[in-house]
């Protein structure tokens, strides 16, 4: 549960920071009168909503990864090999995130061509990543690590599967944004949608990097060095 606790500590820190902005030491019974600033954020509600959603999804992945690492400590653990293809997939997902970042910057500068190109590239790279993940599944399956073969393989399929489904859901939102991008005249109308897509993509990239890092750390071939096993023990 250490990973979950690290995650919860981060959430608690955000909540504490937010509470500190809300004058929770005020004495409201003494303060009849007008208060202009209610403490609400100036960001659009959709952005706050997505941020909160990412916290929930973060909780989901923190728990999945926690379960994975807890299971590892419970004995009888036979790790599954890490397909080399995942390195390529990681690069593709980084490119996808980068393309959307580019689209976001273009939207802020009001350049419609850049927005369209960025969105398209982001979508194509994301599809390529999903295809690559499916290919990695096939490789593992062929190597004898099929879903029911052992818990390590099952966890790999589960976590990559849930991650892929979230990316697929993101692609629906991205598709709608692209639809708008080819109809809208100004980048201003698109800016919020593009920003939301980019935020979601960066988050899924972060989740992937953490999970991939954990896979590498616990890979028996990689984790021979003392530092790595130390980190593993802490987590």
């Amino acid at each position, binding site marked *: *549960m250490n990973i*979950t606790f690290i995650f*919860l500590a981060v*959430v*608690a820190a955000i*909540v504490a920071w937010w*509470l500190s902005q*809300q*004058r*929770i*030491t*005020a*004495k*409201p*019974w*003494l*303060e*009849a*009168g*007008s*208060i*202009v*600033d*209610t*403490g*609400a*954020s100036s960001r659009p*509600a*959709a952005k*706050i*909503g997505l941020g*909160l*959603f990412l*916290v*929930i999804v973060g*909780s*989901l992945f923190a*728990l*999945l990864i926690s*379960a994975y690492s*807890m*299971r590892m400590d*419970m004995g*009888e653990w*036979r790790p599954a090999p890490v397909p080399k293809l995942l390195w390529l997939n990681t690069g593709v997902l980084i490119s996808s995130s980068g393309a959307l970042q580019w689209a976001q910057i273009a939207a802020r500068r009001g350049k419609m061509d850049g927005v369209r190109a960025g969105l398209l590239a982001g979508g194509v790279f994301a599809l390529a990543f999903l295809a690559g993940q499916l290919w990695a599944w096939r490789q593992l399956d062929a190597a004898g690590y099929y*879903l*029911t073969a*052992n*818990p390590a393989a*099952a*966890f790999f399929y*589960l976590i990559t599967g*849930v991650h892929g489904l979230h990316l697929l859901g993101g692609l629906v939102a991205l598709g709608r944004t692209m639809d708008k991008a080819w109809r809208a005249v100004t980048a201003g109308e698109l800016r919020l949608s593009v920003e939301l897509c980019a935020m979601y993509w960066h988050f899924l990239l972060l989740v992937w990097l953490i999970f991939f890092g954990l896979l590498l750390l616990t890979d028996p071939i990689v984790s021979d060095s003392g530092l790595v096993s130390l980190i593993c023990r802490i987590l």
Partner: protein
Amino acid sequence: MVDIGTVEVIPPAEVEDVELYHPKSWVTKYVFCQDAKVIAIQYSITAISIGLVALVLSWFIRLQLAFPGTFSFITPSNYYQFITMHGMIMVIYLLTALFLGGFGNYLIPLMVGARDMVFPYVNMLSFWVYFLAVLVLVASFFAPGGPTGAGWTLYPPQAILAGTPGQDWGIILMLASLILFIIGFTMGGLNYVVTVLQGRTRGMTMMRLPLTVWGIFTATILALLAFPALFVASVMMLLDRVLGTSFFMPAIVQAGEHLKYGGGSPILFQHLFWFFGHPEVYIVALPAFGIVSDLISTHARKNIFGYRMMVWALVAIAVLSFIVWGHHMYISGMNPPFGFFFATSTLIIAIPTAIKVYNWVLTLWRGDIHLTVPMLFALGFIVTFVNGGITGLFLGNVIVDVPLSATMFVVAHFHMVMGIAPILVVFGGIYHWYPKITGRMWNERLGQFHFWVTFLGAYLIYFPMHYLGFIGVPRRYYELGETAFVPPSAGTLNVFITAAALIVGAAQMVFFFNLIWSLFKGKRAGGNPWRATTLEWQTPQTPPGHGNWGKELPIVYRWAYDYSVPGAEQDFLPQNQPPAKRMPVAAPS
């Protein structure tokens, strides 16, 4: 930061008005409706309906315990199915859905001074996914083999092995239903939180919110963080059951046959389940705390004692509830230092909780107490919650829990603290807000009858159950048979408890009759029958119209608890009443 000083009335302007969705047909107005008030009613009716099913199931459980072997339709399998579905429905599909989906949807937009939730479409989806979850749950009653009988905690490996009732379809439908419920709840929860964060009207700072909103808000955040644990556990168990993975399943030999499973950990499930399961107690309790604070303050005509402490205690309880889940697993075996840690953290929760109880009592102290029906239920809650909470202090200790954990004592404890106590608040809340929701007042006499039967009856049911637990009567057993340490008088006591349970259950019909009858024949209630300060009572129409407010959103000038104000025209000042002109205002300290 915050600028206080002028007491001039703010000119109504510059509030950015949201574009409201306007229903165009009967279907979009009453069925696929995006108005939070309608969604709240839909949530409440669905939750209460499925809750009634669970009530009937509890009767069957009690009939079996009092008269073992008398009823042919209660087989051992059925008994376990009844227990499982009763627990699951009551905790998740009734209480969670009713407090957050029902009260949350109705009260949040009105109390914060918004026209609706911030994402009305997602809010509508939330209800329909919840409705689907309930349908899937109900479907499991009709599936071959019936619903699952694994106990509401669904512990593997037995939950998905042959021999457990509902192993074919029941468990699959149960897990699918939970997954749907969590998806639906997440959609709603996003709305509740973001509406409180961003939808507040001008002048409504967080520290001016009524405690009802604070309670629902904190509980929703808890739920959003904790439900993913149940989601993960459900998905993993579903994969174990359907695809044959071994997340939770160790190597098992059943009836001389080696099963396909191997290498999984049942304890892992328990950790995930209780990581959700303990916060769940507070997901149900925190909204109740909030609502009770408002009921007591309004009906005792006194400002809430220690408003800030009440808010801080809510937050503290929410934080602590994430580090106590292990106290549900003492008898699963654990490292003694862990047991010590979980026992300590569990006992520490008593501190913020006690702060809340003291503050309720001190609010009553020298108040102008009106023993209206909502107030009776609020008072009943305090007493019941203290009773159930104190047995919780017993059970929080490892050495006390180990002998008591598998007995009726635990059944009595959790029914008092998270069954009866929150349900009393549900009733109190419904009686309190019914005049706003329908525009009519219920019958006072019937309400009082309902309260006394429910309140006293609950004690007749659960008080003796503690004694049964002390003498060692185990829970979960279909039949005790001949047991040396259980005296025959325990059987007599069981008959008594069952009689009380049947009466209390039947008396709830009075409540439903009162609500339905008053809908048509009740006295007109007027806009603010309780002379309450909070915004939902200040709407231009009763029941509030589409969009809640007139042309302008209300502007808030004060906190929610200005009752018995000296020199005021009435004995209270609504939150949107501007202060008297040119009155000096205290600077923020």
